[in-house]
């Protein structure tokens, strides 16, 4: 079915068109919306695009990193200052998907996709969103819980504090097909160490709930402790608390619960 395509020079015009039409979807890299059109999704009647340069802005050099929503994973891999994000960017698709898929689109990718968002969740990113209300910043956790109700708004960018050291940010994706494939589970950890103790632990999980989630119980175990074997074992034992994984072709909910602690233990002890 043919759809109407509207391209705007500014994000504010695109937001106006998105909020005026229930059947409008914003087209970023195409890996979600074009797929929906190819599958005959009749809920999409209008495709909105914006050529606004603000969407491809990147500020990677300072202590606060900002990525425009239209930044592709290939662009992140080309950015030397974003080395800590290369593992999550490389874990997505093959080269063609990485040339197309964007940071903004990944926030909407349903399980078993959305791996980059797991990294952003562990980095406690802020999402800049434009809507009829103007522009506002939303904490990523709140954004993910309300992403199905984001119709009529447009993600402009994500921003987050750069991890203090290379060792303070860790990422691992478990997939059945290497080097690409949908996620069985995805883990990201932010573990800043201050005076030998963890201060501000954040653990994020993909494919362990309907959206990417924080593993709060494991975080509480880690907070204020040194990263020794006993702490790691206790965090691994707590990691599935509050999760609600599903069965799919890549793995059962039971299997996901069984392996989550194993992979968290390996991630925290530097084996993954």
């Amino acid at each position, binding site marked *: *079915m*043919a*759809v*109407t*395509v509207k*391209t705007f020079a500014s994000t504010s015009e695109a937001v106006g068109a998105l909020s005026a039409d229930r059947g409008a979807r914003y*087209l970023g*890299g*195409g*890996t979600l919306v*074009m*797929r929906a*059109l*190819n*599958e005959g999704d009749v809920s999409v009647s209008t*495709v909105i*695009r914006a050529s606004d340069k603000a969407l491809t802005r990147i500020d990677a050099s300072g202590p606060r990193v900002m990525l425009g929503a239209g930044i592709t994973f*290939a662009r992140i891999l080309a950015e030397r200052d974003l080395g800590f994000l290369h593992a999550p960017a490389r874990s997505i*698709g*093959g*080269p*063609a*998907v990485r*040339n*197309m898929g964007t940071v903004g689109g990944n926030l909407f990718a349903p399980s078993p996709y959305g791996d980059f968002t797991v990294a952003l969740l562990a980095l406690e990113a802020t999402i800049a969103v434009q809507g009829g209300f103007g522009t506002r910043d939303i904490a990523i956790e709140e954004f993910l819980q309300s992403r199905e109700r984001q119709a009529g708004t447009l993600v402009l960018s994500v921003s987050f504090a750069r991890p203090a050291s290379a060792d303070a940010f860790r990422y691992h994706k478990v997939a059945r097909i290497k*080097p*690409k494939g949908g996620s069985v589970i995805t883990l990201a950890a932010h573990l800043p160490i201050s005076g030998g103790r963890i201060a501000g632990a954040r653990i994020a999980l993909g494919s362990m709930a309907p959206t990417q989630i924080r593993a709060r119980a494991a975080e509480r175990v880690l907070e204020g402790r040194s990263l020794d074997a006993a702490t790691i074992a206790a965090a691994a034992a707590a990691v599935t608390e509050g999760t609600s994984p599903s069965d799919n072709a890549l793995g059962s909910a039971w299997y996901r619960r069984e392996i989550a602690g194993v992979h968290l233990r390996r991630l925290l002890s530097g084996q993954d």
Partner: protein
Amino acid sequence: MAKTALQFRHNGRDVAIFADGGTNLLVALRELIGDMTPKFGCGQGGCGTCSVLIDGELHLSCLTLAETVAGRSVETLDGLKQGPNLHPLQRAFADNFAAQCGYCTPGMLMAAKALLDRNPQPSRAEVVEAISGNICRCTGYEPIIDAILAASGGRASA
């Protein structure tokens, strides 16, 4: 529904088409231009057989909105041959038995070209990474990897 006029370069030649709104580049290439070399596989971004180069970058044509290539350069397998001669990659695929049923071959060749254009002497691991978005269900990946390495300077046995 109004059609959109669209001009772009297709294998070095200027083309102009009228596409329905929402038409993907794969449909535009096959049905409006008549270039049948990019194949339809999954329509979801999972198989890679529709891969083409857009301004030299590997993209999935089935997930590309046709009108986004206006004014840009699109290369497909059809543009790979050099007059009556096969491209060195095509020759290497033939010599290394790297195309059995041939359905994945157009995407494999374009992914390989994207790699060799920016990295003429890739390692085996880099070849594996470069074709990781392209699924082959019958030839097997080993002859394909060998062929790409052979085309890149004969490091694999031909």
